[in-house]
């Protein structure tokens, strides 16, 4: 009984995802208030009607009370969580008790993150985002929503089953020699060849990594690339898993499977990047390849309205087309979020993929590079957002500061628009709005720097986002010279890596299931049931595997005990997050037959443990703690580092579960040893 909904202020549904139970619930309720003989309208209309009172009430409260709903619960323990991001209201519902308020809030933030990764800075303009999320063309809308729904489902599945996504950190396969070899291979052979090939059509490979299920075998970033943030990496893993889902029940690939994995992966139902022929940002978009639609299997027992059935038609994607993703880049002069990249996800074998991230090349005939466009747009957007905020705060020095910001960018923006005018990008609208803005702000007849200028700020933002969108979200330009690595080149890359890893394939698949096992720890740490250790500076985790499936076993076996431990681990992580949110960095709990410990501490680069500091206390409805939706730990480190200027500070977390009968002294000793020894570089003596 689950649902996630994104709505505009006028109760228009911009996206929805429901499970079957919730769908039926809505249909029943709507049907109850319908007259006889009338068919049910489209599901999105039904859900819009049912939720409309909440959405409208929410905006009323914001307008008139300056407060907003964050959650509801009912006597039957249904939970509703609401969050407003700019002009969109996200609502997540759970009625089957499997998700609590924290889980739903996390889901909302992750959804937003995925939308940012897919749409980039367009998300900063409410008007444009609404149009992106809800295209006019119903077919396209259906495809887009299907894709987003599928991503959400992939995320939920990973969240419930994968420790990486539980603690939001990446797990690396631990095999020092192989990993080193792979990284070298990626650097010296693969990426170099790709970047020097003529078929790369101007793309430059920045990052390359090999995934085994959700675990990282090797990761290479080129020298002039900025580090890929953990948040983006996790988002990319979700996308990779979404494209090529790890079928955990079939982790032993049979011979037949091997043949079928060349080229495109199995069962992909996702849309290609829309490639329209004209550049007007408001029209509908059609796919370049008009392949025949494929009917997805529909359960005949599910009663659905006629038109909603049609929305299940999806066309198979073009496997060699990369996905546009927007990732954070940090340069000397600052942080630039949502910079355009292309993602190539090349399946090697079921469960093993090669992912390449390339920098988007500029248009062939333009005189400004794409990265310059993106960076400039971001800087201008930031300026207008800041101005808007200052104007909202009131008159006085705030407005004066706002003026300064715009004066700074005025000249640059003039130049930028002039440069755009000479390129293929349509910038007439932007020019017009900028002129109007200047009139409003700088001339005597205009409103000056007052609250009245705010709508103009919004318009400027929309226009800037429109330019951005033109550049990066649409694939204008002749379709016969697409700007991406040629299919042949991609295939060659695939083959290269396959050859390299052929002998290791089976080992890797097994290793990903049993990266670390408890067996090696039981002798030194009797009574230890499980642990998770995370390096929050690099976003890496170490933990014994905890997969509970039919075929794989861990030391806990299968069956109710293993399931129980798993549920305890999941609950424990949620609990410790709640305490961390309130400023408690050490928590020990005696719960039933087990004793749980959680520690968070800071170290400097040499491993010296720094003194503990105060952890800021956050309100209940703050963004969820983790690294995927936003990087809480980066902020924490920055906060802590204020008192430790000049040295690099790292942050670690350790979570352990022991049997309750072990004396606490011993438990703490174990924790101490684990904390110090787990991150010992390269040769891990405990393995």
């Amino acid at each position, binding site marked *: 009984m689950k649902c996630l909904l994104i709505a505009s202020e006028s109760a228009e549904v911009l996206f929805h995802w429901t499970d079957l139970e919730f769908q039926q*619930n809505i249909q029943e*309720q709507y049907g109850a208030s319908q007259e006889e003989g009338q068919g049910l309208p489209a599901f999105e209309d039904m859900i819009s009607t*049912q*939720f409309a*009172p*909440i959405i409208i*009430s929410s905006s*009323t*409260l914001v307008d*008139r*009370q300056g*407060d*907003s*709903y*964050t*959650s*509801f*619960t*009912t*006597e*039957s323990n*249904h939970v509703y969580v609401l969050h407003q991001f700019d002009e969109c209201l996200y609502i997540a*519902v759970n*009625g089957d008790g499997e998700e609590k308020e924290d889980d739903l809030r996390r889901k909302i933030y992750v959804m937003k993150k995925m939308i940012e990764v897919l749409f980039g800075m367009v998300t900063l303009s409410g008007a444009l985002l609404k149009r992106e999320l809800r295209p006019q063309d119903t077919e396209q809308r259906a495809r887009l929503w299907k894709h987003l729904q599928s991503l959400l489902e992939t995320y939920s599945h990973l969240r419930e089953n994968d420790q990486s996504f539980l603690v939001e950190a990446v797990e690396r396969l631990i095999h020092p020699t192989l990993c080193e070899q792979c990284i070298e291979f990626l650097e010296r052979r693969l990426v170099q060849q790709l970047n020097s090939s003529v078929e790369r059509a101007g793309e430059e490979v920045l990052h390359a990594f090999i995934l085994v299920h959700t675990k990282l075998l090797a990761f290479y970033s080129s020298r002039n690339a900025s580090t890929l943030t953990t948040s983006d990496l996790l988002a990319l893993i979700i996308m990779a898993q979404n494209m090529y889902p790890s079928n955990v029940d079939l982790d032993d690939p049979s011979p037949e499977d091997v043949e079928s994995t060349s080229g495109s992966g199995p069962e992909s139902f996702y849309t290609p990047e829309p490639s329209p022929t004209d550049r007007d940002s408001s029209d509908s978009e059609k796919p370049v390849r008009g392949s025949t639609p494929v009917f997805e299997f529909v359960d005949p027992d599910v009663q659905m309205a006629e038109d909603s059935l049609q929305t299940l038609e999806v066309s198979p994607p073009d496997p060699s087309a990369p996905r546009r993703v927007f990732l954070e880049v940090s340069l000397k002069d600052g942080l630039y979020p949502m910079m355009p990249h292309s993602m190539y996800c090349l399946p090697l074998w079921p469960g093993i993929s090669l992912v390449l991230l390339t920098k988007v090349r500029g248009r062939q005939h333009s005189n400004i590079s794409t990265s310059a466009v993106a960076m400039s747009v971001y800087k201008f957007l930031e300026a207008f957002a800041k101005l808007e905020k200052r104007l909202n705060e009131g008159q006085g020095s705030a407005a004066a500061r706002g003026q300064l910001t715009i004066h700074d960018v005025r000249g640059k923006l003039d130049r930028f628009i002039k440069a755009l005018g000479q390129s293929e990008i349509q910038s007439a609208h932007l020019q017009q709005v900028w002129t109007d803005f200047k009139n409003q702000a700088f001339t005597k007849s205009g409103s000056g720097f007052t609250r009245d200028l705010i709508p103009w700020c919004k318009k400027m933002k929309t226009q800037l986002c429109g330019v951005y969108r033109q550049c990066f979200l649409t694939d204008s330009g002749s379709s016969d010279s697409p700007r991406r690595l040629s299919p042949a080149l991609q295939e060659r890359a695939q083959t290269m890596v396959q050859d390299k890893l052929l002998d290791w394939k089976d080992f890797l698949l097994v290793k990903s299931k049993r990266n670390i096992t408890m067996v090696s720890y039981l002798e030194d740490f009797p009574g230890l049931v499980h642990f998770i250790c995370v390096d929050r500076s690099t976003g890496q985790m170490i933990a014994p595997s905890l997969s509970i499936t039919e075929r794989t076993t861990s030391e806990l076996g299968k069956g109710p005990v293993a399931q129980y431990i798993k549920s305890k681990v999941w609950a424990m992580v949620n*609990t410790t997050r*709640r*305490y961390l949110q*309130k*400023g*408690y*960095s*050490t*928590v*020990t*709990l*005696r*719960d*039933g037959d087990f004793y749980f*410990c959680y*520690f968070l*501490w*800071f*170290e400097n680069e040499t491993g010296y*443990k*720094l*003194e*503990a*500091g*105060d*952890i800021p206390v956050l*309100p*209940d*409805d703050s963004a969820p703690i983790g690294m995927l939706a936003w990087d809480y730990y980066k902020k924490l480190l920055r906060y802590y580092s204020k008192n430790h200027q000049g040295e690099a500070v790292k942050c670690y977390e*350790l979570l352990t579960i022991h049997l309750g009968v072990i004396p*606490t*002294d011993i438990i*703490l*000793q174990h924790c*101490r040893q684990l*904390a110090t020894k787990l991150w010992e570089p390269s040769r891990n003596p405990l393995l």
Partner: protein
Amino acid sequence: MHDKLMAELMPPDSGRCNYFFLYDGSKVTGEGDPTREGICYFYPEETPLDRQELLCSQFAGVGRCVSELSSSPVRTLRLRHNKFAIRMKDDFLWALGCSVEVPTVSVCELLDQLINLFCFYNGSVRQSYQLNSQETLAARWARYLSYLQSGSSEMCHIFSCLKTIDSTNVDPLLLLKAALILQACQRCPLVLAGCILFRGRVVSTQMSPELTMKVMVHESETYTKGQRINGPSTSSSFDGAVSSTTVFLTMSELQYLQAAPVDKDFSSHSTPSKNAPPKKTRLSRTLSDTPSTESEPSYPSSSQSPQKASLSPHLSESDTSVSSPTPSQSTADSLNPSPQWLRPPLSNGKHSHEAEEEALDQSYYHSFHNNGDGGSQIHSEGDSSVFGENSHLNGDAACGTVFDFRGTDSENERSHEDKMVAGDSRGCCGTDQGPKAEMKDPSHLPSVFDNLEESPFIGMTLYMHRVKGLVLALLVEPHFLSDAASMEEVYHSSLASLNGLEAHLRTISPGAPGAPGPYMFAHFDCIQSTLTTNLSGRPGGAPEHPFVRATSLLHSHFCNTETLQEAIIRSASAAVYGTRSVAQETYFQQHGGSLRNSGIPNHQDSAFSLPSKARHRLLKHGVNLL
């Protein structure tokens, strides 16, 4: 003394609750109906009207929408700066808002308490609004709310506890004396149970904590307003020291009170015969741990036979009709609630663990209801006798005779009574596991479910006898006030003892507050709903705030996780230890325990020595954690 008491009752600035309102949606059905018609009461009263209307209309709308989507009423509603507990019933919507720091379970509990309090003094909500004006009832809501908020320290935002006298300062014999007074009063068959209060604090009580708290509200009212007689009968013959008011009990409350095996004399003149062995009577709940056996000898042990004899004529005389403000004819059903017991939450959000006790309860309640079926005719009375002076609860006939496990039906009411009575002595002795077990019966505690479902309210009377700062409050049958003999008996038998008790209690000096010591603790007794703490209770005391915040978090955690036994949480500046069992929750913090290391696991960290320190130090406060 008067001033001291007044000071205690004065509500501080930081109340527990930021908003409270009751909204009646049935008054605002048409498009043109202004929202203000539906606002029955809004706190803070000085809130501008448009703001009131905004909140009420928005909450009502959203509440309706969500409850339709989920087919279940809304329970909590959170905004960014406030969290609200919600109750929805018919067209009524209650909302109580507190700051987001207060645990959600506590906010919900406070709202339920408030509603229960209203129903205790006014009966069914819908009926009350039909019979009284909005203004009258608004004034009452205001009174109840201000009582619940009065004297609240930050700890009281988390735990709802009874204000009791400091038992460490009082000679236990005085407490025993108070208990005996109550037991003596209880011998009158028209008296159900009572409590003794001194300066607004509980000295001894025979009722559940929830019921005691409700009674205390009236006591504080009569004290602050001077003595005013409020009720259908006056008792000027007692120099105005006695007052009374009507109250309403729910079925479960009544059954709980009547579940006590009480020694009922029909009159004070009956000479007890020694045929039967003395029953183990239930000691009223004092603050000392003295078990029930100690008080036996002073009792006149009465046998079953006079009781049997006394009860039968009693029955035949009785006009068995239930007084209830609800004029409906569904009362036949109402006496037979389904054996499927609605499990009301225990105080502070916990649920009972004793499954077998539940089975126990169900079996004899079932029998009680069957008995009730045979034994009563329920009339619906007119408005004039809504407070039913001559009404008599059918269940009263079975008072003290409820322990029949066989739970058999019977056509003949009288023979059934006999069987019940006979079974009683065996039953109660057999099942009496001591005061603790009886006190722990959660299913008897009235929940807001009872108050909000259409279970009928049974009108009783609250009788109060005041001797300066000491008050004897008894829940009595409504016609007690017209029964001069009983009134005389109760008044005079207790007068001397009350005077003596009052004199003793008055002379007790408050006791020097002990040196705070290098630690802070809070100990909550879940059974008695009492809080023991060494916090000063001043709102916003700076060094105490982190401890209160930690306690609040831990308390929520304990409520949500039944299996959690102990927890230690540490921030850079302080570490707090919390432990709990079925009967108690204890929180402990040692001063000066700042983290000297990095937070990496260290068994020498002072945080991990908290459990043993707590056990050691709290012994002298009477808290046994071993």
